[in-house]
C-alpha cells in the first residue's frame, strides 16, 4: 500500500470530520474517494498531504513529502504570473533536477502551450484546472491527491480533465475525491465511499458493483401506466416496480435474461403502449445511494 491510515480521526471542536478511517490505497491505483458534500473528503486529502494534523490514529504515506502533490478543487495562482511561470515555479520548488523541457511537455499535455505566456488572471476555470494538473505532475510525483478535480467544470472541461487523469494511470498513484459518481466510475479502479467521516466501503470498483444492485429495466410507456405496474408486480420473475412518473416505470427483475424472455409478452398482455425499453445496468450511483441511504 502506498497510503494507509488506521483509526484516523480529525476533530474540529465538537464536530468529528473523520471518524476512524482505515484507508488503504494500493500502489499504482486510481482511487476514487466518493461521498456527499461534507463527508470529509477534503479533510482526508489535506491530512494525507500534511496540511492538517490528525486528532487521533495513524497515517502512513510511503513517498516522501516532496513526492506527494495535492491539487485543490479550485486551483488559484497569482493572477500576474503566466501559466509557464506557474509550472516553472512548481518544478523548481519540488524537483529542480527535473529537466526544464518537462515544463513544455506538461503544458502541451494540458493543451496550454498556446496560452502558456498569458497571465493566468485571464484563464477560464477549465484552463486553471488544467494548469493546476500541469503544475501538479511537472515534478513527477509518486502520489497525486486530487480534490474534486472536475466538479466545477462544464462538460467539455470535465472531459479534458478526466482524460488527463486517465493518462496518469501507470505513471503515478492517484487519489481523487468527487461527488460526481460517473466520473469516478469512468477513471477509477478502486473506490472508497465516505459518509459523515466514516468509510462505508473500500475496494475494487468491480467488487462494489457486482452483486449489489438488482438488475432492472427502465420502461417508457404511453400513459396511463398504473395498470401495467400492477400487472407486472404479479409476475414471479419481477422483484419490484417503481412508478417514476406518469410515463416511466423501473422494473426490478430476478435476472435480465428472464426479463428478455418474459417482459415483452407481459407488456403485450396488458395492452401497454411501449415507447422504449432499456436494461438498466448497475452503476456506482445505485450502489452509492444504497450504501448511504
Amino acid at each position: 500500500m502506498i497510503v494507509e491510515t488506521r483509526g484516523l480521526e480529525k476533530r474540529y471542536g465538537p464536530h468529528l470530520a473523520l471518524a476512524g478511517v482505515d484507508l488503504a490505497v494500493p500502489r499504482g491505483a486510481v482511487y476514487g474517494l466518493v461521498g456527499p458534500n461534507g463527508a470529509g473528503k477534503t479533510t482526508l486529502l489535506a491530512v494525507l498531504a500534511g496540511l492538517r494534523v490528525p486528532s487521533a490514529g495513524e497515517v502512513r504515506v510511503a513517498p516522501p513529502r516532496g513526492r506527494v502533490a495535492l491539487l485543490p478543487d479550485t486551483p488559484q495562482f497569482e493572477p500576474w504570473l503566466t501559466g509557464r511561470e506557474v509550472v516553472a515555479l512548481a518544478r523548481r520548488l519540488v524537483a529542480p533536477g527535473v529537466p526544464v523541457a518537462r515544463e513544455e511537455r506538461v503544458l502541451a499535455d494540458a493543451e496550454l502551450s498556446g496560452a502558456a505566456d498569458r497571465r493566468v488572471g485571464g484563464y477560464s476555470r477549465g484552463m486553471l484546472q488544467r494548469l493546476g494538473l500541469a503544475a501538479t505532475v511537472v515534478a513527477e510525483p509518486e502520489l497525486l491527491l486530487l480534490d474534486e478535480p472536475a466538479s466545477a467544470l462544464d462538460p467539455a472541461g470535465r472531459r479534458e480533465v478526466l482524460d488527463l487523469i486517465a493518462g496518469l494511470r501507470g505513471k503515478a498513484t492517484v487519489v481523487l475525491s468527487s461527488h460526481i459518481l460517473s466520473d469516478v466510475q469512468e477513471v477509477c479502479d478502486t473506490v472508497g465511499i465516505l459518509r459523515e467521516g466514516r468509510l462505508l466501503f473500500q475496494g475494487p470498483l468491480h467488487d462494489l458493483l457486482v452483486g449489489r444492485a438488482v438488475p432492472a429495466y427502465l420502461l417508457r410507456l404511453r400513459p396511463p401506466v398504473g395498470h401495467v405496474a400492477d400487472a407486472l408486480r404479479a409476475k414471479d420473475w419481477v422483484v419490484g416496480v417503481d412508478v417514476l412518473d406518469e410515463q416511466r416505470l423501473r422494473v426490478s427483475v430476478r435476472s435480465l435474461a428472464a426479463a428478455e424472455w418474459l417482459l415483452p409478452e407481459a407488456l403485450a398482455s396488458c395492452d401497454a403502449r411501449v415507447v422504449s425499453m432499456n436494461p438498466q445496468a448497475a452503476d456506482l450511483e445505485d450502489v452509492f445511494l444504497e450504501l448511504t441511504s
Partner: protein
Amino acid sequence: MTLWRLEWLRLVRTRRLVAILGAYLFFGLTGPLTARYLDRILGGIGTEGVRVQLPAPTPADGIAQFTGNASQIGLLVVVLVAASALAFDARREMAVFLRTRVRGAAAVILPAYLVSAAAAVSALTLGTLAAWYETAVLLGGLPVARLLVGLACGALFLAFAVAVTALAAAITRGVAATAGAALAALLALAVADGLTGVPWLPTRLAGAMETLVRGEPATGLPAGAALTAALTAGALAAAVAVSDRREL
C-alpha cells in the same frame, strides 16, 4: 523561477514597487519644498488681515517635513505592500500551491520578508536622497554623517515594521487583517513611546534622522537599534513558528 523572483515579480507586476518608491520620492521632494515656502502657503490660505510669521526655515526643517510624512503615510504604504506578500495563507488554494511544495513556512516567509523590506529601505533611501538634494538647494547643507546614520536608523525601523507585519500575517488571515493588526501594533508602540518617553523604543528610530540633523544628542539610539534588531529577529522567528503550525 524561484520564490525570490516570485516576490520581485509581485512588486513589479502589481505596481506595488512604483507605489512604495513613488510615495517616498513624493515626500522627499515635497518635504523641503513645504518647509521652505510654509510661510507663503499659510499666508495664501490665511484669513485676510491675519499675518502668519514663522522663523526662517533651517535645513533640518526640510528633513523634518520629509520624515514626518514618511513615518506616517510612507509606513502605511510599506505595511500594505508587505501584508500583500506575507499574508500568503489568505487564499487557501494559493497557499496549498506553495505550502505543499516547500519544507516549511520559512522558505516562503523569508523571501517575502526580505524583498518587501528591501523595497521599503530602497524607497526610504530614494526619498532621503531627494529630500537631501532639495534641502541643499532650497535651505542649505546638511550634516552628511548624521543624515546617513539617521537613514540607517529609519531603515532598521522599516525592517522591524515589515517583521511585525510578517508576525501579524502568521497570526491572522487575510491581507486587510494582517495590515490592520500590524498597524495597530505599531500604533500601540508609538502611543507607549508618547506616554513613557522611553528613548530606546523602536519608534524612536523612525524620527532619528530629524533628531540627528538638528544636532540633538542621540540618547538611547544605540540601545534602541539593538532592541529593534532583536525584536525584528524575534518577530520573524515567531512568524515562522506560528506559520508552521497553521493548518490549511
